[in-house]
């Protein structure tokens, strides 16, 4: 693990240097268009990381937010194309519509990089970089299998977006990891559309039906506050290690996720390598604008797992622990 993190950090450093070098060579022309699907806490952190990387390359950034509207995102990308930006980095809201947006931009000679949320056809974009929702889901599943240790284990799965690549794969790959563990029963799968209020209501309802719930999979950090509210009301919000503790695994690595780990309220957090992801997107965009093909064509970076036992050692690698 340490070697991999060292390798990733080294790669990030080298890439940033490359970004700066390429940026200095094209200092006058470069404007990177950035089109987000929505604005929420994780996106705010991504925007900051992109801003830093683009500024590091001495380029300008033009930013647009589609606010969950695929039509608006299409218009924003069109307008970035007509402005003649050097390259476009997009977090797609509609993973199908993103294919056409990418083809249209590339046909106009503008590289199209997708970030975080993969389009349905990866071949349509110049380059894609994101977290690895499947790897993260598997790590979560394997952790539950280990915690259950062969005993009967009732698990609540809070699902993110059902029409969203990250949401679908974080769920599907959890299932794959749990397939062989017949002692683990997923008692409820609650669609939440990434909404903390729905996470609260789903947890409340599931605990009503299954007071002996043993685990909760909350695949995004914003769900945690709602989950904690319910557990507190039921007297089950106790630190890891206390017998009545409910095993909780979450994904993202935000400051709130890190805080929950430090307070020993959750057992495992899988931190998305957000700064790394954003650096790679900027590097690929600038390289592609200079005529260099991105290799590999798509990258899915697995999250960094950490828990109360190793949070001190891992904190420097987790973006949310350093924000």
């Amino acid at each position, binding site marked *: 693990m340490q070697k991999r993190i060292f390798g990733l950090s080294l790669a990030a450093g080298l890439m940033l240097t490359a970004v700066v070098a390429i940026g200095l060579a094209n200092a006058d022309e470069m404007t990177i268009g950035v089109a987000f699907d929505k*604005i*929420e*806490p994780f*996106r*705010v952190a991504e925007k900051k990381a992109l801003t830093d990387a683009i500024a590091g390359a001495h380029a300008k950034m033009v930013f647009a937010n589609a*606010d969950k509207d695929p039509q608006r995102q299409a218009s924003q990308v069109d307008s970035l194309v007509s402005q003649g930006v050097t390259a476009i980095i997009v977090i797609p809201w509609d993973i199908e519509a993103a294919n056409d947006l990418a083809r249209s931009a590339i046909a106009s000679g503008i590289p199209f990089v997708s970030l975080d949320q993969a389009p349905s056809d990866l071949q349509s974009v110049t380059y894609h970089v994101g977290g690895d929702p499947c790897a993260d889901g598997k790590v979560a599943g394997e952790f539950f299998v280990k915690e259950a240790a062969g005993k009967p284990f009732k698990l609540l799965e809070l*699902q993110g977006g*059902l029409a969203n690549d990250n949401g679908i794969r974080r769920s599907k790959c959890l299932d794959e990891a749990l397939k062989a563990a017949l002692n683990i029963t*997923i*008692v*409820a*799968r*609650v*669609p939440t559309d*990434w*909404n*903390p*209020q729905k996470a*609260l*209501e*789903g947890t*409340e*309802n*599931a605990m*009503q*039906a299954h007071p002996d719930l043993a685990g909760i999979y909350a695949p995004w950090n*914003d769900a945690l*506050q*709602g989950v*904690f*509210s319910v557990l507190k*009301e039921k007297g089950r919000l106790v630190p890891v290690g206390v017998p009545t503790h409910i095993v909780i695994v979450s994904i993202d690595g*935000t*400051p*709130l996720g890190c*805080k929950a780990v430090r307070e020993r309220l959750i057992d495992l957090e899988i931190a998305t390598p957000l700064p790394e992801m954003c650096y790679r997107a900027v590097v690929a965009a600038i390289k592609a604008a200079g005529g260099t093909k991105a290799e590999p064509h798509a990258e899915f970076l697995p999250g960094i797992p950490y828990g109360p036992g190793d949070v001190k050692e891992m904190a420097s690698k987790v973006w949310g622990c350093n924000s």
Partner: protein
Amino acid sequence: MTTRRRLSRTGAQLWSLTAVLLLVGIGFASLSDRFADLDNLRNVLLQAAPTMIGATGMTLVLAARGIDLSIGAIANLSLALAIALSGTRSEATLVTDTTWLVYPIALLSGLLFGALNAAAINILRLTPLITTLGTLAVYRGLGLHITGAALIPVSGPILSFGRAQVFDFGLPVFAALMIAAMGWLFLAQVPLGRQLLALGGSPRSAIETGLRAERLIVLAYAISGLCGAAAGLITVGRVGVVNPDLGDGMEFTVITAVVLGGTSLFGGRASVLGTVLASLLLTAVDNGMTLTGANPYAYDVVRGFVLLVAVSADAVSTYMHTRGSPLIRELRA
């Protein structure tokens, strides 16, 4: 249509809605032995409280032939403002501590933003749909600007209202029932409420008979904004966090509850009791789906199916009711 006939039709709709609610209850109770537990009924009532409150406000707006698409955005902006003005953020804990001022600030803000909607409708003479679609974007944008689109965990008095218990029921349940009762009384007994219905039924006649339409519109939208903020206070109090998505989609849930409850989208006919029953129905469906461990992809399908059944039951009961009416008999003859 006479007042008596309107009330009778509303009565028929209430019976059909009650029947669907009972059927849904029996169905889920047969699939999960926990569904009919008293604890779970408390749970359903508590989860329905924000919808009930928002929908009561929306009932008044629809009664006056209006619509408020910005109710969720008002909840968001009112809470964002109240937290910004009355809260103190600790960088060490990342939590914003609030004071009791959060309540009056949020509620007054909601009232003000609702009244602003009405002012825009009255002054610009735009349709309520377009006006509130515009203010939805403005209010949501302002809310995002104030919070910086950050997730803000909160502590202090803001949690008290959403989490307090009275006789083992959540305090929001009593608040929602009280607000609904006030809404019902307002429409049924208070002259201003009757005037709202008259305005919704026929704006031209209402104005010609001397009703002050603009004042009534301000009243309806201000109450709707107030209810939106109250719903937001409950949600934030329960979840313990102000998130950028607060109130997102709330307008659709409350409008669904209001229309399903028998209030006409074209004004003049309203049923607060129907709104309450429909809010409970929508919440009970979600609750039952989780309790029975339903496939997550089935949630929307079942929700849609229940809505269709409720609307069909309403159509049938309305047909049965009007078939025997002297007017229909006369028309057929």
